[in-house]
């Protein structure tokens, strides 16, 4: 019965003496986590449908709505008991059903990390090609080698656990904010007329549909923070300390940085700054952009691997694994995908985003309804960590039917409103988005089944 390596590397709750991050520390970590090159891809997708003004409005509004959902779902539980997103979902999903959330966390963070690592590898390859160091035929190999090296670097930094993450974030924060602001200014100052006159390449013909799609992209991009945020806000001593860092540190940077991708795709038809910065200012600018890409993606990948490792600690078979082993579970799939099928996530980014909305919108709603309304902000921390028959969160065979039915209802609601593969939609998508009705349906189903079935049966510890 050996203990996990340290308190912040375990899936165990952090006591109040271990939750020592102040607002500034948490703000820096969350910002560094949020600010990654996926922002350019998000901005690029919005730029397919909307001009700059409408794109900024839709993307920012959607992002803040999505961040609100995640904050309400995770922050109160994580900061009261010092637990991560996965442990916080156990009261709703049951002491076996929570494995659903582990799988979703694992799949989504692996997906995002693949995207970031491949983006990073591509940027290095493009820059080296642009300055004449390598020929075009070598770009693919450079991508693969750089990606694997980046995975090794992440592994080495995170051997220090959450301490390594926090210290690196303090340095990356300055680089990301400084260069990010400069890039926005550079793009808008040099290309403002082109951007103003640019037409979205894939506008549907219905301005309302395009606008709502911009909002939807913002929402799903930010609810993808669900798996990440718990592992970090649990280091804050209370919900107050995490509220503004979450909303402003994790919510706002994504749409602000996405403006770079939005403006770049409208003006230059490419969102990767290490490509368009060379166009605007030559190889020196390209090197600066690459530094930004490295800093931004490194911080986010660190946070993703850290959150995944903490989440995997909850899996019984991995509960006693070494921290280094858990990190390998998080990093090896990324390295594998980057080596074998690097184009997979780039060519299917829209589907990946919709996948996030399909699953994480219901999860957020379930947690909000359960913790804030049905349980009145109290859970049994013992039952979170001690399962089995007769315990509060065992429900029926370890599964809570309210959560399963709510997830299913949310899943089919989303599929009806917006097809994740074709983006074909049904009314009222063009008024309400897909994620918001999905969350409402899931929340209502969860509440009804809980009140009518679960509570009367004496299950769930209500």
């Amino acid at each position, binding site marked *: *019965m050996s*203990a996990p390596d340290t308190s912040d590397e375990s899936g*165990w*709750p*952090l*006591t*109040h003496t271990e*939750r020592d991050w102040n607002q500034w520390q948490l703000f820096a970590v969350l910002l560094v986590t949020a600010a990654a090159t996926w922002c350019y891809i998000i901005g690029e997708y919005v730029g397919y449908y909307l001009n700059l*003004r*409408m794109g*900024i*409005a*839709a993307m*920012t*509004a*959607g992002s*803040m*709505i999505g*961040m*609100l959902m995640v*904050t*309400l779902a995770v*922050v*109160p539980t994580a*900061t*009261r*008991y*010092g637990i991560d997103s996965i442990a916080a979902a156990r009261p709703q999903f049951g*002491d076996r059903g929570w494995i659903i959330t582990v799988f979703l966390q694992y799949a989504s963070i692996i997906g995002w990390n693949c995207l970031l690592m491949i983006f990073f590898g591509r940027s290095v390859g493009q820059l080296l090609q642009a300055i004449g160091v390598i020929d075009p035929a070598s770009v693919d190999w450079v991508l693969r080698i750089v990606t694997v090296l980046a995975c090794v670097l992440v592994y080495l930094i995170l051997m220090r656990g959450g301490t390594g993450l926090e210290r690196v974030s303090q340095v990356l924060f300055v680089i990301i904010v400084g260069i990010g602001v400069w890039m926005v200014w550079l793009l808008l100052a040099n290309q403002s007329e082109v951007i103003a006159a640019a037409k979205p390449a894939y506008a549907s013909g219905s301005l309302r549909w395009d*606008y709502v799609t911009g*909002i939807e992209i913002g929402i799903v991009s930010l609810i993808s923070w669900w798996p990440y945020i718990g592992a970090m806000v649990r280091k*804050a*001593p*209370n*919900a*107050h300390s995490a*509220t*503004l860092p979450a*909303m*402003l540190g994790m*919510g706002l940077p994504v749409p602000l940085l996405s403006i770079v991708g939005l403006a770049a795709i409208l003006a230059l038809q490419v969102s990767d700054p290490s490509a368009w910065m060379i166009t605007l200012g030559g190889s020196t600018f390209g090197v600066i952009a690459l530094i930004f890409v490295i800093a931004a993606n490194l911080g986010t990948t660190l946070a993703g691997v850290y959150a995944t490792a903490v989440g995997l600690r*909850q899996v*019984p078979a991995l*509960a006693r694994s070494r921290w280094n082993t858990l990190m390998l579970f998080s990093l090896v799939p990324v390295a594998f995908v980057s080596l074998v099928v690097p184009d997979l996530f780039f060519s299917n980014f829209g589907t990946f985003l919709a996948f996030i909305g399909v699953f994480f919108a219901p999860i957020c709603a379930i947690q909000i309804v359960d913790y804030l309304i049905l349980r009145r*902000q109290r859970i049994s*921390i*013992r039952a979170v*960590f*001690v*399962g*089995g028959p007769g315990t509060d969160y065992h429900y029926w065979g370890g599964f809570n039917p309210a959560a399963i039915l709510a997830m299913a209802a949310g899943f089919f609601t989303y599929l009806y409103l917006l097809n994740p593969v074709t983006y074909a939609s049904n009314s009222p998508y063009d008024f309400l988005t897909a994620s918001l009705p999905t969350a409402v349906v899931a929340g209502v189903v969860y509440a009804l089944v809980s009140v009518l079935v679960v509570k009367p049966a004496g299950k769930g510890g209500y």
Partner: protein
Amino acid sequence: MAREALHPELERQIAVLEKPENQGAGFGGIDWIWLIALGFVGPALLLIWGWS
């Protein structure tokens, strides 16, 4: 998750956190104002601005 005897350190941490005075406080009034401003009002104003 452990169904057998808990690790002593985990048992200690749970015992500490079962006492309300050792738990982190939830959202306060000012937090709810920020959440509503940044998650409801702000987005609504932005959407109106973008559509106009």
